[in-house]
């Protein structure tokens, strides 16, 4: 696993999923924005999808903000009200989110934070650890972690204030579209959900992404252009709520908005406490792991398939998914194949191993991506044109 303390601006920019999580913390001033955002979210959650567009959200946010402004003279409340009101005139959420300027500004400010605040924020928002996990890893009291987070976030806010001319609404308005918006109300789901669930599972302007056969959420900062957009689909089995968040965040961002997410992609699931940073398989071990997974796919052996998976992987991969994969990919594997290691990439939270499968029938090659977190398999993906054809 990557050393969290070394995360720099580029690291942060290349893996933008964390920004949405961090934006919630930045904008959600406990006394002000959080209440407003909460109420907007709750209200939106209860409304039909067609009524939860930006104008409607902006109107609700504005009204809520104005209510609070009237009841208090706190500066932050006024600013947030102004920011909410500005939603009606600024660019669309997609354009705003796609504005790499704010991404970069936030990433730079975080990267420039003094220690231990940077490390704590990176661990919390970039790597996805809980406060309790951070406390355990750093061997410090939980309360210290929470204080560092609060102080770190406050410092980022102040720095953004400086960059944006001491007018908080400038950058708050730019970050608001990053905040999660609930999915359309579905029949039988009228009850309100806890905020944390909304934040984690529902994304502003985007439904959760599913993959056709594997039905698993795929991920990562992925920019696909041109032919790959329409051609290179595939099946993946991958764990991690963060993966969905990353995909969703990318989905609403400018360049990526026009891109597709039924594409091969992998991202690490949030690191798990039991994983051992720095430890992990070598190339030969990874090849053995792959062989076991492919064998399990061929035999539709669910227990074998998840035996070396992380907890998140086990939770995300259901027997039915493997059954589908086994039916389609397994048939192709049965003709005979030769795996070749293509190397590995260091990624936040682990290692991405790449393999080429050449089939005995002389058909198209397949690309296998296997993500390991320590010794555990945290993600698995096969891009095999023939399997895609079978899925159709």
């Amino acid at each position: 696993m990557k050393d969290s303390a070394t995360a720099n601006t580029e690291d942060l920019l290349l893996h933008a999923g964390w920004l949405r999580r961090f934006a919630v913390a930045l904008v959600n001033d406990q006394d002000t924005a959080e209440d407003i955002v909460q109420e907007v979210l709750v209200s939106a959650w209860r409304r039909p999808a067609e009524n939860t567009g930006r104008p409607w959200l902006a109107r609700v946010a504005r009204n809520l903000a104005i209510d609070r402004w009237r009841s208090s003279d706190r500066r932050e409340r006024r600013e947030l009200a102004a920011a909410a009101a500005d939603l009606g005139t600024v660019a669309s959420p997609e354009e705003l989110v796609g504005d790499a300027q704010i991404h970069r500004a936030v990433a730079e400010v975080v990267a420039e934070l003094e220690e231990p605040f940077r490390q704590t924020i990176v661990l919390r928002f970039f790597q996805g650890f809980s406060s309790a996990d951070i406390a355990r890893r750093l061997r410090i009291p939980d309360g210290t972690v929470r204080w560092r987070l609060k102080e770190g976030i406050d410092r980022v806010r102040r720095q953004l204030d400086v960059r944006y001319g001491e007018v908080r609404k400038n950058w708050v308005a730019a970050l608001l579209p990053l905040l999660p918006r609930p999915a359309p109300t579905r029949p039988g789901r009228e009850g309100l959900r806890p905020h944390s669930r909304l934040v984690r599972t529902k994304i502003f302007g985007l439904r959760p992404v599913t993959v056709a056969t594997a039905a698993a959420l795929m991920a990562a900062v992925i920019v696909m252009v041109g032919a790959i957009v329409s051609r290179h689909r595939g099946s993946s089995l991958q764990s991690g709520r963060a993966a969905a968040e990353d995909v969703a965040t990318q989905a609403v961002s400018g360049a990526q908005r026009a891109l597709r997410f039924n594409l091969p992609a992998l991202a690490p699931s949030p690191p798990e406490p039991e994983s051992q940073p720095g430890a992990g398989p070598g190339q030969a071990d990874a090849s053995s792991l792959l062989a076991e997974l492919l064998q399990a796919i061929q035999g539709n052996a669910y227990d074998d398939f998840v035996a070396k998976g992380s907890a998140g992987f086990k939770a995300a991969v259901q027997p039915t998914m493997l059954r589908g994969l086994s039916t389609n990919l397994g048939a192709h594997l049965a003709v005979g194949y030769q795996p070749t290691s293509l190397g590995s990439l260091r990624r936040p939270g682990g290692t991405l191993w790449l393999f080429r499968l050449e089939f005995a029938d002389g058909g198209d090659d397949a690309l296998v991506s296997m993500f390991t977190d320590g010794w555990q398999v945290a993600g698995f993906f096969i891009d095999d044109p023939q399997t895609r054809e079978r899925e159709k």
Partner: protein
Amino acid sequence: MSMRNLVTCLAVSALCLTLAPRKPALAAPVAPAGVERVLVKMIEAVKAQSYDDFLTDADDHLKTNLSRQQFEGLCGLYTAPLRKGYRLEHLGQLRQQGTYVYLWKITIAGGQDETLLRLVTKDGKAYGFAVQ
């Protein structure tokens, strides 16, 4: 066999083993020079934020599917990091649906994480480009 003959035989065997041609060490895969040149040109175009340069070696399909807005979005994410410098390592290639998919690992200077680049070619032209 006498001891002398045995020693001679062993010595000759050892010499033969020493002089026998060895299996060459596994070398890193090498991308065709032309393909790597195209990739570098596209990366440099992202660095320079030049839409036209990016599409210099693209086929009609890519030109049609990549809007200027998409390209600008790509630049928004990657121009600044790339300008810090980068290192490419060719990982290999695949044959898929009449195209060649070339894979590279790109490491941004000063960064620790590595990113996968795909360049898809068809009939010698850039057919697709992806950053993962």
